[in-house]
């Protein structure tokens, strides 16, 4: 079979993305990363005065670890995404089953394809941007290679860890819960014992700070073990089971009778629950990224007051909370509503209502974080900032992407618009909060543009032909 399956999977991934986002928009994505990093590199000398090089390396490592986690989570989120990857969509990973190839061989090709594809998409443009700028900012010419190796290993560690966790998840949910519980206890204990210097134990960060064969070997082993275990434990998921379920929809529709469209909201929640997204999404797409962000933000404690770190975290949580909109749209296709008297704006309204219900999770999370970090005095501004940013970012997503927020990920034009529309007001809010934490209440004003974006989004998406009909 040689590399045919691998190369075909690469082509398929490209066509999938370029069909969804447009060939040019998608092809420009690595160029955008390159450009941003190239230009940002010239700011490094300025950053160094407030953030030591070691901490900058820590933050970069954190970003790439998070990237690996996100890419892995996107590809393999428990049963549902396995289903979507291998089951209902006519992807090569599924149709190749009709060929004389083992499931494990197909899965291995799938993993290698993800690694190569996303290295070219994300990691390489980042390092190239830095490499091209390096002669102008006094960085040794060999450093970009060093950076490439360490960031690649960091990214791969995030990816392999998620593949490993998702493999455990598909085998045994209690086993995953135990791994998480043990991991949390160990991480908590280590954090209390070592503080942020805990990160120094991470091999690829050691490699970034100080190139050595030992650190390279340790990093490679740390990446290889989860990958090998994932492939060894891989169990293909098949659709076509005849498991029976009791009617959840009707009682839930009754309980949500105060919503504008109770059956639509009930369907979203049932979808989320049954797709395995309820717990999986909260862990992989919410708690894990925010845990990492909190860890890396805590570096800032040496530079700014604790309340400022908390409020920046509230803003970040708001932006991550807004991604819950993708949770309730990614399991849905509009074709399910094709034969019903449901307009696009009605559906968007319903999704916004469901999104509001889901905000209980980040709200509780923010309260807990605020209390644990001793910031109870700043609970009110933190909650206002989180809530306002979350709903504002949701409204921007609705306006820019309608019912397909996944487009945000790689459509350069949409992504840039999103970054500008979110970045500018968020920076203003952070600046206000730094001056006086209670100025953060001004974030409530974001409700006005948010309302406008949703209204404009209705008009904009109602006028378009419904996708996937």
């Amino acid at each position, binding site marked *: 079979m040689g590399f045919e399956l691998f190369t075909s999977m690469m082509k398929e991934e490209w066509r999938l993305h370029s069909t969804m986002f447009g060939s040019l928009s998608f092809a420009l994505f690595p160029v955008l990363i390159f450009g941003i990093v190239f230009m940002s590199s010239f700011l490094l000398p300025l950053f160094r005065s407030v953030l030591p090089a070691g901490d900058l390396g820590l933050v970069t490592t954190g970003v790439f670890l998070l990237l690996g986690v996100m890419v892995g989570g996107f590809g393999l989120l428990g049963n549902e995404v396995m289903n979507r990857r291998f089951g209902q969509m006519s992807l090569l990973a599924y149709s190749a089953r009709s060929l004389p190839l083992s499931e494990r061989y197909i899965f291995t090709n799938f993993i290698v394809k993800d690694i190569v594809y996303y290295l070219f998409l994300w990691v390489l443009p980042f390092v190239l941007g830095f490499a091209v700028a390096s002669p102008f900012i006094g960085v040794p010419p060999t450093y970009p290679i060093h950076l490439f190796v360490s960031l690649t290993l960091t990214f791969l560690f995030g990816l392999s860890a998620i593949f490993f966790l998702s493999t455990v998840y598909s085998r045994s949910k209690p086993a995953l819960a135990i791994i998480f519980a043990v991991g949390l206890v160990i991480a908590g204990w280590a954090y209390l014992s070592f503080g942020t210097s805990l990160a120094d134990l991470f091999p690829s960060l050691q490699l970034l700070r100080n190139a050595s064969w030992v650190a390279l070997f340790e990093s490679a082993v740390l990446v290889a073990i989860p990958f090998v275990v994932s492939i060894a434990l891989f169990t293909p998921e098949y659709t076509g089971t005849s*498991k029976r379920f009791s009617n959840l929809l009707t009682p839930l529709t009754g309980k949500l009778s105060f919503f504008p469209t109770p059956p639509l909201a009930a369907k979203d929640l049932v979808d989320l629950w*049954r797709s395995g997204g309820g717990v999986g999404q909260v862990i992989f797409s919410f708690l894990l990224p925010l845990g990492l962000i909190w860890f890396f933000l805590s570096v800032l404690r040496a530079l700014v007051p604790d309340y400022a770190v908390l409020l920046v975290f509230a803003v970040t949580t708001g932006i991550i909370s807004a991604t819950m909109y993708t949770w309730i749209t990614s399991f849905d296709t509009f074709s*399910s509503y094709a034969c019903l008297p449901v307009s696009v704006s009605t559906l968007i309204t319903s999704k916004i209502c469901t999104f509001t219900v889901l905000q209980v999770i980040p709200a509780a999370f923010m309260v807990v974080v605020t209390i644990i970090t001793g910031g109870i005095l700043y609970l009110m501004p933190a909650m206002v900032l989180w809530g306002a940013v979350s709903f504002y970012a949701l409204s921007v997503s609705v306006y820019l992407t309608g019912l397909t927020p996944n487009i945000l990920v790689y459509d350069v034009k949409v992504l840039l618009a999103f970054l500008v529309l979110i970045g500018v007001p968020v920076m203003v809010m952070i600046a206000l909060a730094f001056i006086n934490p209670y100025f953060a209440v001004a974030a409530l004003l974001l409700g006005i543009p948010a309302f406008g974006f949703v209204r404009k989004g209705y008009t904009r998406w109602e006028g378009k032909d419904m996708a996937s009909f």
Partner: protein
Amino acid sequence: MGMITVIEAQGLTKQFGDTMAVDNVTLSVPQGSLFGLLGPNGSGKTTMIKMLTGQVRPTNGHATVLGLNVLDDPIGVRKSVGIIPEQETPPSFLTAMEYLAFVGAVRKIPDIDEKATWWFSFLEFEDKRDVLCKDLSRGTRQKLMFAQAFLHKPVLALIDEPLINFDPIMQRKVKDYLADYVKTGGTIFISTHILEIAEEICTGFAILHKGKLLYSGAISELAGKKQHLSEFFFSAVQDDENA
């Protein structure tokens, strides 16, 4: 008194980029007919149904369905009619029963449990009632889509390839149901490329080829010409290819 028209299309056109999917089609369907839109794969039949049900906006022309303009009131049209899309797409994570309950709640249909039970029994899939839609076979999914389309007893149903996934016994049952439905005053608009089905059950038909309407008339007209539908169809398509 003239015949009541339930579907009226005037110069309906849909262009996707460089592709002309439907080209200036003018068509009318009288009430109480079982009308078949026939054409080879890719002739524009599905696009035509999507335009008539307000799922896709025409590039040019206009259409009324049950007196409602599909451009101005697509939701009103979908409220009144039943639709079975070409690809059976009930939501993956609802059970068959939940899907019918969902449709019932959206359409505000009373006594939904009772009505759903009748359909499960009639289409012989009671045993799949509590199975997730993603785990149903294509045939069972089509049964479910069939049930949802007729749950509210619409006066007009638009069906894209109605029998394609059914076994011969179920095909017979569904054909009989459609014939009875028309006898009691309903109208059915089906699109299909299976000519035997059309010849057996339709009262009127139209032929679409490469987006253009080649012919529209009653099946009974063929008897006068002593021609089978398949012969008529092939000759019309061939003439168009040669033109």
